[in-house]
């Protein structure tokens, strides 16, 4: 019985990629957009989360995102980071492929699952494009079950 459990854990961990905001992005995550803060949710999505999720999706793996051990979050950082993911990959796929760890502040996981996900899915369905406030490299979006790499949005001219 114990061996089976160990084997199961080994299989699941071998098919699970993990990223951490602290190690892969910043100890001091800030606000929503790049035009109002350096280490923004928008930057986290474009520099880290989109690529990591695309890799997990292609390999049919689960992606674990660890939110713990940073200095603390603003709700807008997490909303922008995880919301963009729903917009680009659809709610069902994101829900089935991502695992969020937030042991220090469990309410963030609740907020992402219960507010950010459905609100951004509604946004995706109504084709209300995400706001982009800096120039980003091309990023992945799932169109008709096919991954496409493009610059989908550019910052609005001021």
């Amino acid at each position, binding site marked *: 019985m114990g061996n089976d459990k160990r084997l199961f854990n080994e299989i699941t961990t071998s098919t699970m990629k993990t990223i951490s905001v602290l190690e892969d992005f*910043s*100890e*001091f995550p*800030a*606000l*929503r*957009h790049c*035009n*109002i*803060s*350096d*280490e923004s949710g928008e930057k986290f999505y474009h520099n880290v989360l989109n690529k990591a999720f695309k890799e997990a999706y292609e390999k049919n793996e689960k992606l674990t995102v660890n939110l713990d051990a*940073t*200095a*603390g*979050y*603003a*709700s*807008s950082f997490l*909303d922008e980071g995880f*919301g963009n993911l729903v917009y680009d990959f659809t709610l069902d796929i994101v829900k089935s492929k991502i695992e969020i760890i937030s042991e*220090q*502040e*469990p309410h963030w996981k609740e*907020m992402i699952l219960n*507010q*950010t996900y459905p*609100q*951004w899915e*509604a*946004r995706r369905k109504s084709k*209300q494009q995400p*706001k982009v406030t800096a120039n980003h490299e091309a990023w992945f979006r799932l169109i008709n079950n096919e991954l496409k790499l493009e610059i989908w949005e550019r910052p609005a001219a001021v």
Partner: protein
Amino acid sequence: MKKLYTTPEYKANQKRRFLKIEKKFRKERLAELRAKRKGKPKTKEKHNHQALKIKLPVIAPSDLRLIENTKKCLEFFRNLRSEEFRSKSGKIEFVIVSLKEVTQIDYGTISILTAIGDDLKFKGVILRSFLPDHPQCKEYMIESGYLNNLYDDNGKPFPKAPKSELMFFEKGCGRLSDEESRKISLLIKKIVGHLTGVEKYCQPLRTIILEICGNSIEWSGTDNKQWLLGVKYRDDRVIFTVTDVGKGILKSLYRRLTTRFFEAFKSNDEILKGAFDKKYGSTTKEENRNKGLPAVKANFNQGTINNLKVLTNNVILHFDEDTLSKEFEKGTPRFKGTFYQWEMTNDCLTKLLPAQ
């Protein structure tokens, strides 16, 4: 023989002359444009560089405590920012402030005065100040570091006060830089150290500060996206203030005409309370937004922050004592901007930290 007007000296002289005339013309054109933008008629004053226009000083009321004497303080702030009181000496614009009669002052007022001073400085206007005669008030103002940005009645900067251990301001403008973000986190460590004796991060406290400062940066509409975080240490508690001198929350809400229409029969304090209850959508009409103010109220409801007060436009909300919340009557000066004040004690921290 070479003709005079083809010699290099002649050509150089002509070029110099042409550049001089062009420079003069450009200067005059620029001055005209500036005058036009300000809506002032073109005058011949531009040639009178010694023009000295001294206006009356803005006189502070004796009770300059924001929470206890809000209306008088608002009147004083309005006059400070009014162009009516701006004096001019040559190209220098300044406002003369008399704090001589002040006998009582609080940290909220110091925070707003600092924010107004920074905003005026950004616009090229300096504050020349007469200090309070009252020795304790004078000392309090010096200790707060407020004078570091001020000029005396002769137009000379006040000597810089040593950094206070008990009062502290963290300022920012434009984007929230990584460095500012780090400074806020280090400040939080110190605050936790003051309240518990052990310096460490407190993620929920950083969340509260980021939500409020983030609102100021994104929505205040100040020219330079300015925000000011104030921290005052007392024996068993820490007082926080966040100030911006932008449009104010209600004015931002009114940009959405539908809000005004549907809420036409409600008082402004009810509408502002609604914004903290996430009753209205975001001004950007994005469904996923507007989580900041409700998060601040949720913290107050959980007892993780105490004595929360919010002053914006013509409303003051006392979350700790709702009967004092009100919309000021017509004729009372409005506060152009948003001011938050709250307190934290060791009890608040124990409510915030046990889950960690």
